[in-house]
């Protein structure tokens, strides 16, 4: 029997990880336009209506744009991170089984799931980075907008995209393909509208019940974190609270996503 130590070329998990990532980058590049249209159309339409038209009509004050922009970025980041993982997972496990060639890679199965989550994070960041200049262009100058809190911004972006990419992994592996439409209307839509993306959390002081109910929504922390980092003058949740909440949420969804992927991968 062949001794395991005598294998011809033991494969480094890191090299497999980057090969998987290269594959996802190659595929994403081929579909870049579709990807951006799919994930940024909704936030950009919002920018046009709420960041341009309504202020023009004087229905909302100028300050609203300052509160809106970080929220829009949070939506772009979260929504595309979820979709970039959930949709391919539903397809791969549900119909085409084309993930099989990756499941045969000589690395622990969880590493394959981890790579997918990282790829989702990258796509989330990409979508937000794409939306930012367009939003700025449509809305005009945003008072109080700053890039000076780079460290905080990076932490929010990494934790937020990880939370939502992991959530995408969980939804994509746990939900039946037929129910993918339901996922958008029952989970994603409420998450967007009650995620403090289109209004600051402190604004809910006016409706105290809502203020505490929305705290179960992970989107709230991404949006508030973005406000804390990008528009610190807008009243927002303390960044320390946001950070702790996102660490907990990201860890929770990461665990769920990993477990669910493993269950689907190994029969």
């Amino acid at each position, binding site marked *: *029997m*062949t*001794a*395991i130590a005598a*294998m011809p*070329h*033991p*494969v*480094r998990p890191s*090299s*497999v990880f980057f*090969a*998987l990532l*290269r*594959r996802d980058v*190659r*595929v994403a590049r*081929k*579909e870049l336009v579709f990807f951006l249209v799919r994930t940024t159309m909704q936030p950009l339409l919002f920018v046009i209506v709420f960041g341009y038209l309504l202020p023009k009509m004087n229905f909302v004050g100028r300050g609203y744009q300052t509160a809106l922009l970080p929220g829009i970025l949070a939506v772009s980041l979260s929504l595309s991170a979820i979709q970039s993982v959930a949709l391919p997972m539903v397809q791969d496990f549900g119909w*085409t*089984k*084309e993930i*099989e*060639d*990756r*499941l*045969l*890679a*000589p*690395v*622990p*199965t969880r590493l394959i799931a981890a790579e997918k989550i990282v790829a989702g994070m990258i796509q989330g960041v990409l979508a937000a980075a794409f939306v930012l200049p367009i939003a700025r262009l449509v809305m005009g100058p945003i008072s109080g907008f700053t890039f000076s809190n780079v460290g905080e911004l990076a932490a929010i972006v990494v934790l937020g995209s990880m939370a939502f990419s992991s959530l995408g992994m969980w939804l994509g592996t746990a939900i039946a393909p037929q129910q993918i439409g339901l996922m958008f209307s029952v989970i994603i839509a409420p998450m967007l509208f009650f995620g403090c993306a289109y209004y600051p959390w402190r604004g809910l002081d006016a409706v105290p019940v809502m203020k505490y109910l929305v705290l179960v929504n992970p989107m709230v922390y991404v949006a508030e974190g973005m406000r804390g980092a990008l528009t610190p003058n807008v009243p927002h949740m303390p960044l320390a609270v946001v950070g702790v909440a996102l660490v907990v949420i990201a860890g929770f969804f990461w665990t769920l996503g990993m477990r669910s992927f493993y269950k689907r*991968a*190994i*029969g």
Partner: protein
Amino acid sequence: MGGASASAGMQGGAGVPRGEIVALESLDLEVRDGEFFGLLGPNGAGKTTTIGILTTRVKPTSGTAVVGGADVASQSVQVRQRIGVVPQRPNPDRSLNAIENLLFHAAYFGIPAATSLPRANQLLDQLGISDKAYAKVDEMSGGQQQRLMIARALIHEPQVIFLDEPTVGLDPQTRLSLWEILRQLHGQGRTIVMTTHYMEEADKLCDRIAIVDRGQLLELDTPEALKERAPGGTLVEMSLSGDASMVVDVVRAVEGVLRVEAQGRTLRVFSDRGGRVISPVIQAAEDNGVSVTNISLTEPSLETLFVARTGRKLD
């Protein structure tokens, strides 16, 4: 891998319960180094589950399975490094073109493009799909996709190749050329484990065949030995208008009849006089008030052995 040790095998009856149904009851088998091994059985026999366990894609609930010296449950990473898998239905990465499928699969095994590119071109050439190298997978026919799956299973030069019903759904010509490819691979000294429910395929290609049904191993030997073990004579299978068990005794008395089995309205007669027993058997049946509605003859073969051991036909 040395000597007569198992390059793939299961001991202690690796079992996999699927809901209440146990897909694999107990299966003890050992595939030798460099062997072309066939798992023959009808649909639902547990063949795919067996391949699933040996390729680390299905977790056995009991028993052990070892591939190339590595345990599928506790050393799955090492097992994956040693194996190439051709699935029952082609499952290429549809977001990539044909050659990208090969290059990325090689990369998942740590093989740099400088090494895998010439190898990929050579494989595509050998398999007769080099003109499709840069084609989208969706533009390839079923047979071409299946060849791509074989190329993918070989790109990292595995010790053991698993093929799960590789010729299902292929036209006869493609099937024959696939057989030729498999013979070549075997000729290169690779260990091949293939499932099939085509008798002829198992007979023509395999060094040894395990006949499985309902998750259990029924027979295990070379095709020649198995055929010799087939119950003597030609199998004459008849559909009757009534209960077949009523005529078993009278038919058994017919000259040349070796063995008779009844199952519902089906009567199976093993004859050492070929088809010459048909007319007296029909006579005997009609004397007992049942008529014969259909007759089929099968020469002694893996098929007759299978029918004798399981009471049903393969497909």
